[in-house]
């Protein structure tokens, strides 16, 4: 029974040794100025071999082990239910959004400062993922350089505040519009490209922006980044202990409460929340408008969409521009939250993570993307105790996800638009 698996099992065991031994078994140890390679302890070596044996046995008896799993009754009680009606689904979605927004509103007042800070980051990722969802999920254009627009938004705010002293509220629309402009400009060369080629060009664009920021030291400060980015103000009220800019007053003095560093964190969080909700609603609106249906039509079948008179140029450019706009939004908030930005925050890994959120959530599905953004941002934080195995766990989670639910957490269900009977 297991004989036909023997070759495969041996192969897997050898691969396990090849991968695990150098990683776990060999250590680089600093000896004075030089570095020496040191073998592992016997215990580690034994562990590696035990792991290989475990892999071997599992692969050898894979069929029977998986067969046992198959016999376990389905744990998910929802698995066998029929499809739910559109009205019900829309209602459920609405309830979900309202519930999560309400939870988000009380969140900063019940948890620690660190948790609020993390939640702000989650909201930034939600904005980014919702924006990328337009490009990848709806219009079907694989964009691997999305982080570039995020960088444009962040640097716009940082540079404007550094050189012209422009405040957060003014920089927010400027950053978003500038990012949208970049999206529009990138849209032109990639109009004719599809699939892999599109991915490569957008990847290149993302790197160009990062390298430009890194090397244009006179303007951007290069790898040193830009610091001292001001915090947002609330109608001219600052959240610092002392007022930095003339004419402003401080928040705690105005309201006669004791100064607390938490005010600023909570305020930033609330701004991010408002913007994330804004992003959600605007894109939701777009999805139901003709342009949203045109994105999907172009994704499903470009030739058919064009044969119906849709302009490929207009549809693709609108997707790129709108996606980039919200990345610019997120970038501005990010710059304000960090107070310091450098090109290091806008590496390819960021693009990959945002894309992973969209794919994990289920392409095109807003609820799914929000859940995935929360999961992907919080999981590595929870797994901080495993430190170096963090990315390993992250990777394993992604692989398992793709095996079990390739369509994403909550795949997109389109909204059917019905014509009203003419009365």
């Amino acid at each position, binding site marked *: 029974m297991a004989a036909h698996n023997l070759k495969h099992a041996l192969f897997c065991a050898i691969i396990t040794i090849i991968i695990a031994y150098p990683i776990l078994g060999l250590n680089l140890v600093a000896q004075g100025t030089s570095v020496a390679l040191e073998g592992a302890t016997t215990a580690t070596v034994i562990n590696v071999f035990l792991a290989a044996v475990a892999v071997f046995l599992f692969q050898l008896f894979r069929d029977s082990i998986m067969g046992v799993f198959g016999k376990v009754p389905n744990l998910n009680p929802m698995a066998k239910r029929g499809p739910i009606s559109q009205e019900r689904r829309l209602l459920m979605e609405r309830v979900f959004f309202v519930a999560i927004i309400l939870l988000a509103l009380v969140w900063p007042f019940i948890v620690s400062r660190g948790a609020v800070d993390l939640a702000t980051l989650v909201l930034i990722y939600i904005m980014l993922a919702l924006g990328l969802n337009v490009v990848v999920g709806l219009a079907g254009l694989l964009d691997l350089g999305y982080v570039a627009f995020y960088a444009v938004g962040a640097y716009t705010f940082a540079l404007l505040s550094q050189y012209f002293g422009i405040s957060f509220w003014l920089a927010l629309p400027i950053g978003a519009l500038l990012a949208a402009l970049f999206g529009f400009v990138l849209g032109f060369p990639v109009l004719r490209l599809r699939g892999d080629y599109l991915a490569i060009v957008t990847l290149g664009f993302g790197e160009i922006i990062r390298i430009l920021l890194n090397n244009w030291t006179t303007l951007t400060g290069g790898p040193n980044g830009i610091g001292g980015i001001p915090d947002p103000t609330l109608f001219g009220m600052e959240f610092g202990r002392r007022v930095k800019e003339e004419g402003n007053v401080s928040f705690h003095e105005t309201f006669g409460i004791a100064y607390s560093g938490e005010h600023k964190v909570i305020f930033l969080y609330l701004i991010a929340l408002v913007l994330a909700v804004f992003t959600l609603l605007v894109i939701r609106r777009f999805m139901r408008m003709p342009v949203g249906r045109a994105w999907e039509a172009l994704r499903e079948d470009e030739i058919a969409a064009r*044969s119906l*008179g849709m302009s490929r140029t207009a549809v693709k450019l609108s997707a790129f521009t709108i996606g980039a706009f919200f990345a610019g939004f997120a970038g501005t908030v990010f710059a304000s939250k960090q107070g310091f930005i450098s090109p290091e925050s806008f590496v390819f890994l960021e693009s990959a993570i945002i894309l992973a959120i969209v794919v994990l959530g289920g392409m095109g599905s807003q609820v799914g993307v929000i859940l995935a953004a929360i999961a992907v941002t919080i999981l590595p934080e929870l797994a901080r105790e495993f430190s170096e195995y963090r990315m390993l766990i992250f990777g394993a989670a992604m692989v398992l996800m793709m095996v079990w639910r390739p369509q994403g957490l909550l795949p997109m269900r389109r909204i059917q638009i019905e014509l009203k009977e003419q009365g």
Partner: protein
Amino acid sequence: MLVLENVHTHYGKIEALHGVSVEVKKGEIVSLIGANGAGKTTLLMTVCGSPQASSGRVILEGRDITNEPTSQIMRSGISIVPEGRRVFSGLTVEENLHMGGFFNTKAEIRKSQDHVYDLFPRLKEREHQRAGTMSGGEQQMLAIGRALMSKPRMIILDEPSLGLAPIVIQQIFEIIGQLREEGITVFLVEQNAHQALNLADRGYVLETGRIRLHDTGKNLLANPDVRNAYLGG
């Protein structure tokens, strides 16, 4: 209605059409037949502006559309049923039809939708079914119905019989005949020469990028060269 004057079309450096002239008059059914690779689809795509003709002129209802973008051409009273049907398989029949009337008002869509359902009662039965789950013939009906949604004055069909059973082909051709009665001009591209020429007022035979023959449908059917080359002797 539609006139092609000495049209040359290139794919990069390769010339696919070497000076083709075709005319489709208002209210006619014109068939274009030819072997694989003769340039039939290229000719249709040139009419649609993708690729555009490198020389010569394409005139639609007296307007020179040679250099107009595809999106504009497709919105000026002409509709194409692309080769291989290309319905939106994830959408329901009704939604597919609505996509066809993308640039029309809701009232117009409702009217054309009823009209399409009159023409294809089968589609009405399948109104809420996903297009991808239907048979090839039904999908072809849907593709034609979708093209009719924009209320075209002229419809171009690219191999509507492709991959369909003979009885279904018969139905499709009957519907094409019906379209003419409604006053829609039909430009039909087919490999299925016998039926295409039988139905057509006039026919063109395209061979390696050139028009070889041009006559009425009946005459072409009787033509020994055509019989030998396209009708199996």
